[in-house]
């Protein structure tokens, strides 16, 4: 499913075909096509304002689109109102119903079951998100992370065909975010539900997605496996958005994309260390080159370079990815 133009039908949970949305004459989503297979997690990543939230609201049916189709399990739902689409959405804020207990929140979307079956489903979902026994609590008694997990359970409970997660970790602090991120990835895989996770955080996109779609100014500029998007970016935008990148003129035209780990550093020379960023196992250095350009290089451990040190940059260009 790396090719955005070919949504296949077999086991395809969600496919979006040529949709567009404009607000006040500005195209916010521009002729986008995507598809997600059953059980696949697609991360939609891009800078803020690129239209990724609008795209999810459009898939959910919360925003109308002008052109194109949205298909769920092969069925065209373009004209179907939100409440009949059976799409689960987890928003940035947990948006729990404050007047309802946790159990009633989780059971809110479960229809057509007896009381006992419903209670069983609620208990099962709470167990899945690691909150077994929280049924009688009120949302205001929970921490931010717990609230977001209840929101996830509430979304999973009706067994939706697709789950959309719109920056679900954005409001949480760093430590909580790390843990919850891993946990949610596990829950989504275990549930086997197709999911679209929206984020502006590139490491989140790379670590959570089976597929990563990079969005810019309303368009999807690249869609592929995390390794492809990181290692074989289609253009300079994707290359620099996913991580630091230096662009080395390639023999025979175009440029080669050099990631920090492709770049070596030696002491002495005309280049200077301008900034250092200690990451624990590695250290990144921004190096001002003699011609004025800046490249980012990475060395193991704390390294032996200090700000202001003279150095020389070297690139092993033998198997770098080439772009235009």
């Amino acid at each position: 499913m790396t090719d955005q133009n070919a949504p296949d039908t077999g086991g395809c949970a969600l496919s979006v075909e040529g949709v567009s949305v404009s607000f006040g004459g500005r195209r916010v989503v521009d002729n986008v096509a995507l598809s997600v297979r059953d059980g696949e997690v697609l991360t939609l990543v891009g800078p803020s304002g690129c239209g990724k939230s609008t795209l999810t609201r459009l898939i959910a049916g919360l925003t109308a689109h002008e052109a194109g189709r949205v298909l769920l399990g092969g069925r065209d739902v373009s004209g179907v109102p939100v409440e009949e689409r059976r799409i689960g959405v987890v928003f940035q804020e947990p948006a729990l119903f404050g007047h309802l207990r946790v159990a009633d929140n989780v059971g809110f979307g479960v229809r057509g079951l007896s009381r006992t079956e419903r209670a069983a489903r609620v208990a099962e979902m709470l167990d899945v998100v690691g909150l077994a026994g929280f049924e009688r609590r009120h949302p205001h008694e929970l921490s931010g992370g717990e609230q977001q997990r209840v929101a996830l359970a509430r979304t999973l409970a009706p067994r939706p065909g697709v789950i959309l997660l719109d920056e679900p970790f954005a409001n949480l602090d760093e430590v909580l975010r790390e843990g919850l991120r891993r946990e949610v990835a596990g829950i989504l895989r275990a549930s086997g539900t197709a999911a679209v996770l929206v984020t502006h955080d590139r490491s989140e996109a790379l670590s959570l997605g089976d597929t990563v779609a990079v969005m810019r100014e309303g368009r999807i500029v690249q869609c592929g496996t995390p390794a492809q998007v990181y290692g074989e970016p289609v253009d300079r935008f994707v290359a620099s958005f996913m991580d630091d990148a230096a662009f080395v003129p390639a023999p025979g035209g175009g440029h080669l994309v050099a990631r920090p780990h492709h770049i070596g550093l030696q002491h002495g020379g005309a280049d200077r260390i301008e900034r250092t960023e200690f990451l624990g196992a590695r250290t990144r250095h921004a190096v001002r080159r003699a011609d004025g350009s800046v490249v980012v290089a990475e060395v193991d451990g704390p390294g032996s370079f200090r700000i202001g040190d003279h150095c020389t940059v070297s690139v092993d260009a033998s198997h770098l990815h080439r772009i235009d």
Partner: protein
Amino acid sequence: MVRATTTPGPRRGAPGRRAGRLVAWVVTAGSALLVVAPVAVIAVSILDPTPSLWADLWRTRLPGMIADTLTLLVTVVVGAAVLGTSLAWLVTAHDFPGRRLIGWLLVVPLTVPGYVAGFVWLDTASAVIGPRGARSIWLCAAVLIVTLYPYVYLFARAAFRAQGADLRDEARVLGLSRVAAFARVALPAARPAIAAGGALVTMEVLTDVGTVRLFNVSTVADGVLRVWFGTGSRQAAAELATTLVATALALVVIERILRRGARYSRRASGRPMTPVRLTGVRALAATAGPSVVVAVAAGVPLVRLGAWGVEARRAGATATVAGGVWHHLGATLAVAGLAVAVCLGVGSGLVLFARRHGALGRVMVRASALGYAMPGPVVAVGAVIVLAALDRTDLVPGPVVLVGSLVGLVFALGVRFLAVAVNGIESGLDQMPASAVASARTLGARPIRIAWSVELPSVRPALVAAAALLTIDVVKELPITLLLRPFGFDTLAVWVWQATSESLWAQAAVPSLAMIAVGSAAVGALLVALERGAEVVS
């Protein structure tokens, strides 16, 4: 935060749902029309003026009425705004002995109708300076100020609290003194809230007929009643009422302009303000000042009413022809209960409908709130004209007569006070995270279920606050009740009115105390609701 949640219109909606939508449209548009009709009728009446009436009025009373109305309006609004705002700033930003208790007590005068405090102070002042001197527009204004300032106080207090500490601390860090920080930062930031409270005071003054009558102040509202009862001409009363409509509309426009842009600036900071501890003489003054206000507005009236009540009991004058205090209390509670139920029911229906239907829905909500900008006598006259017209049509079955029925009275009260419910519910819904409704929809809930099990339950504090404010308003209300009550259906307010118009103060004591008791229960509910997150808004 994205608030708009437009749905792709179902291209092939089920016929059942389309019928449901049609019903919702018809009911909502119908009730909005019905609520707007009395106001529209008054506005239209001026298109066919009666020249003789105006010539007559202009030669005799009208110039005096206009002068008295404007004098009273300006004095009371400015006085209540200054008093309410300073008290609010005193209790939110300072600490002094009894601060918490005083903060609550300052709301109590809300339960004392102006005409009750009025006759108590009229009698007290008469004993000192003689009855002729006591019946002055200035004493009238003073009474209205001490009974109406709580509106400004409640709004301003909420605004100062919402500002939190950060705004003031920032101003002080930037080098402003405490007084300068108040004058240049806190006060301007609270201006929309103060204007909203001032608008309520304005409406109360324009509407008042009970208090002004006691002090022989002849305002335009009083004139409408006099023309109605004197000549029996609805047309003449309606025409005179248009001047009030014009004034009210002009004030609404001015208030909107003053508030523009500042509406959504609340909830700036989560950290509450740390009050400045006052000591010595300042602390004494801080405790004494508000206590005097509460004593004047509620304490003295309660003591004197109690004494009169005992006197009336000895004289066996604690009942009217219709019955004792329980009878009249029952009538009051029945009217208040029905009016509150109608306002909350229609109000929530309108607001929830409007949220799902964009611009047109909003227009309907705004239009339905017009009655609140209309003085009571105006609404009463308009309502009677509409009800009489309905009585003549086939829509109402033959033997039923709306004019002079309980239905008619509740309808007119609904027209007048619907906005209290609408504004309360809207502000409650505004506090909900926008994604709560979106979540409910993605979970498969239909609009009706979302309204019933998500939106209404989460605005419960706002509904309670609105119900309390409505109760306080309806219990005190006079002109509509006087003009539209069914024969023999006398509320406590009507009893007070009848007794005081014959200067029988002792006989008015028991019903006055009963009204204050009902009002106090409502104020208690209001304060609890405010603590639980409801907001006062207009």
